[in-house]
């Protein structure tokens, strides 16, 4: 009897293993090609031009040349096809790729500005349902063609494009020059009546340093990062740049903010972590600047009021903790009096920047990308009352006051600046 029992149990176990183990859908890893990023442009013959970057595991694992090579031997292979829909287009790619394409490791969806300005609702609706798509992928808007961006994005320090996008997501915490947006958050924002979407802006820098767009911060200015993607005057290296954000109203892109404004956006949202900042030296006679590393002390305090006529007033208090990292003029900003002057200058500059960003979002974009609506809706008990209020229509008329509180806590590795005596 025990032998029969063991036999029956063994057969049952075998049956369970064979049936429940997913044999129908099993795929060996060397039968699958993983798409690392997808680019979406307006097609010429069909609705979309879909560009995919497929991981080339041989070169990622070995010492292959970094970057993308069209149909070549880089760490990724780039292909494009025109199609009326994005996911079904993968089958078209399969006609020239021997492996089954998978979106399980897709880290970025790069959408061209042209497509973004036409509206993304239809596009996202057709993507979000697909089981392989992960909401944790980045959504980026490309100035110019998304295909160009994928093709010209040269990986110099990474073998895997996946890692590049993972690092892009994280790197915003170190400078705040773009507000990172994940697919799931962008989709949520499209559904929301209290906040509008924004995505990081990417572009390929064409030409050398001289062709870069002008920045408002000139030699002696106080602005760092007042560029949009493709305009940062860097020579050499990867021509792909990510700085600034695309601004959406509803599902349509309506404008662009630069890197500096992206920092203000993050500060107003309470998501700014850390970044280097330059302010004009308040006590120096010449065009000197003081360099600081700034971190957000804690989330901003946002108070909202609605009067009986439905006018909204918003007061925002932002708390920053700058640390001095460089003083060109040699003025002793470590003293109590000078430190207070510098703190006031930092607060003023950032306050001015935040107010200007808010003005642009109200007058130029008419889009609450900061998400003040999330606080305004606290005044309403039910969704029907909130929906009837139509916050996004009220936002351009809202009165928003920003106050920045800066407190220099540390002065780097020097506690005092001694006078320069020359020769």
């Amino acid at each position, binding site marked *: 009897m025990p032998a029969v029992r063991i036999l029956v149990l063994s057969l049952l176990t075998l049956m369970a293993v064979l049936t429940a183990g997913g044999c*129908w*859908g099993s795929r060996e890893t060397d039968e699958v090609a993983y798409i690392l990023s997808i680019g979406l442009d307006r097609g010429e013959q069909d609705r979309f031009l879909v560009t995919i970057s497929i991981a080339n595991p041989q070169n990622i694992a070995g010492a292959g040349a970094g970057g993308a090579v069209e149909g070549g031997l880089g760490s990724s292979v780039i292909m494009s096809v025109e199609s009326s829909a994005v996911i079904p287009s993968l089958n078209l790619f399969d006609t020239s790729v021997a492996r089954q394409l998978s979106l399980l490791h897709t880290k970025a969806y790069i959408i061209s500005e042209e497509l973004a300005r036409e509206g993304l609702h239809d596009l996202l609706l057709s993507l979000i349902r697909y089981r392989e798509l992960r*909401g944790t992928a980045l959504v980026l808007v490309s100035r110019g063609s998304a295909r160009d961006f994928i093709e010209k994005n040269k990986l110099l320090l990474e073998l895997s494009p996946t890692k590049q996008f993972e690092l892009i997501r*994280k790197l915003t915490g170190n400078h705040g020059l773009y507000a990172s947006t994940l697919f799931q958050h962008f*989709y949520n924002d499209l559904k929301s009546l209290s906040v509008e979407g924004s995505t990081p802006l990417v572009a390929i820098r064409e030409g050398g340093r001289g062709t870069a767009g002008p920045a408002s911060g000139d030699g002696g200015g106080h602005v760092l990062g007042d560029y949009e993607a493709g305009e940062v005057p860097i020579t050499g290296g990867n021509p792909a740049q990510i700085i600034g954000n695309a601004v959406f109203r509803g599902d349509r892109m309506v404008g662009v903010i630069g890197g500096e404004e992206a920092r203000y956006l993050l500060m107003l949202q309470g998501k700014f972590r850390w970044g280097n900042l330059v302010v004009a030296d308040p006590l120096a006679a010449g065009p000197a600047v003081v360099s600081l590393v700034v971190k957000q002390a804690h989330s901003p305090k946002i108070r909202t009021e609605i009067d009986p006529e439905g006018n909204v007033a918003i007061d925002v208090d932002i708390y920053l903790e700058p640390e001095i990292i460089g003083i060109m003029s040699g003025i002793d900003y470590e003293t109590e009096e000078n430190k207070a002057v510098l703190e006031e200058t930092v607060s003023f500059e950032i306050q001015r920047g935040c107010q200007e960003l808010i003005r642009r979002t109200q007058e130029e974009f008419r889009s609450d990308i900061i998400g003040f609506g999330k606080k305004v809706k606290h005044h309403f*008990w*039910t969704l029907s009352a909130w929906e009837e209020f139509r916050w996004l229509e009220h936002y351009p008329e809202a009165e928003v006051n920003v106050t920045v509180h800066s407190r220099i806590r540390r002065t780097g590795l020097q506690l005092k600046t001694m006078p320069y005596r020359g020769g």
Partner: protein
Amino acid sequence: MIREGSFGPAEAVILLAISNIARFFLPYPRSLAEIGGTAAWLTLPGGLVIALAGVYVMSVILNKYPDKTIIEITEEVFGPVLGTVFNLVTFSFFLAVGALFTREFAEAMIITALPETPVSVVTVAFLAMGLAGAYLGIEALARTSRLSYLYVLGGIALLLLAMVPQCDLDNLFPLLGRGPLQIFGNGSLSTAAVTEIILAAVLVQAMGGAGKFRSIGFRAMLIAYGLGVALMVTLSMTVHYQSLAEFTLPFYTLARQIYLGRFFQRVEAVFVIIWSVAGALKIALTLYGATVSLTRLLKLPDYRPLLWPLGLVMFIISLLPPDMPASGRLDLIILRPFALIPNYLIPVLVLVFYWLRGRSRRAGS
């Protein structure tokens, strides 16, 4: 006399709690988001109050007949004809819950992990686990749930903690969502539609008798609804209510959003295993409940011979809905309202009849 075995209150509480939270692994949370909007989580405290009242009413009935289960009590109070009709309602309810949960769990597995496996194969796998569990008896199921609860509850706790960085308190506003009537009316009635009150009343003798019923029921409901509130609050804080109402499997979607650095992501596979355990337990329990209630109704000495035919019936019923959306609709439109009958309506009627009969007896004497 059916030999059911026996187990302690701790096992009973865990068994009922796990059975109750199994619904949160299915499309059910999305319907709460549709009913309550931003206040989807508020539908649960109202449901808890109703469920506690249901447990209380049931405990009062069971205490009147300490040696019997709700099946024998119903027959005694209403007589053989009406009592059998009501007991058949209870039996059908268990069968319907078991069949629909089998289908929904099978579809969930196909959507999440086994996209190319035929639904019949996944259904058979779930039913095989259910049959094995039910065959081994309620004591084995209770002890299994006691062993597995740390993994199930630990998995849920891990999920909730991992989602903390993505939580946004503002998503819970406006606090009353779709309005008090929707939340505390439709919402609470929906969340009060459980299987566990009537199930516990059928298993009462194995759980240690009527004396322990109230305490076990209260504790199980508090744990299950507490976990439900925690899950719904996290879901509402993480996902916009409109998006939440769209998702087929909100809990799975939540697990897919976990991102704690480059090395801690894609952990949803762990949760698929956890809810498979909960699903198998739920299916085994409902199959057991259906079999035992029919056995008691037919006054048979053993429930095991009925397991195989009822398992087959459950398998066939589970394949009747043409698709996953239809299963979800059946769950919401038929099963939830149906659950109110054996859990609340019949016990109240039993109590009223018992009281009226006692009154007429006293008047006669």
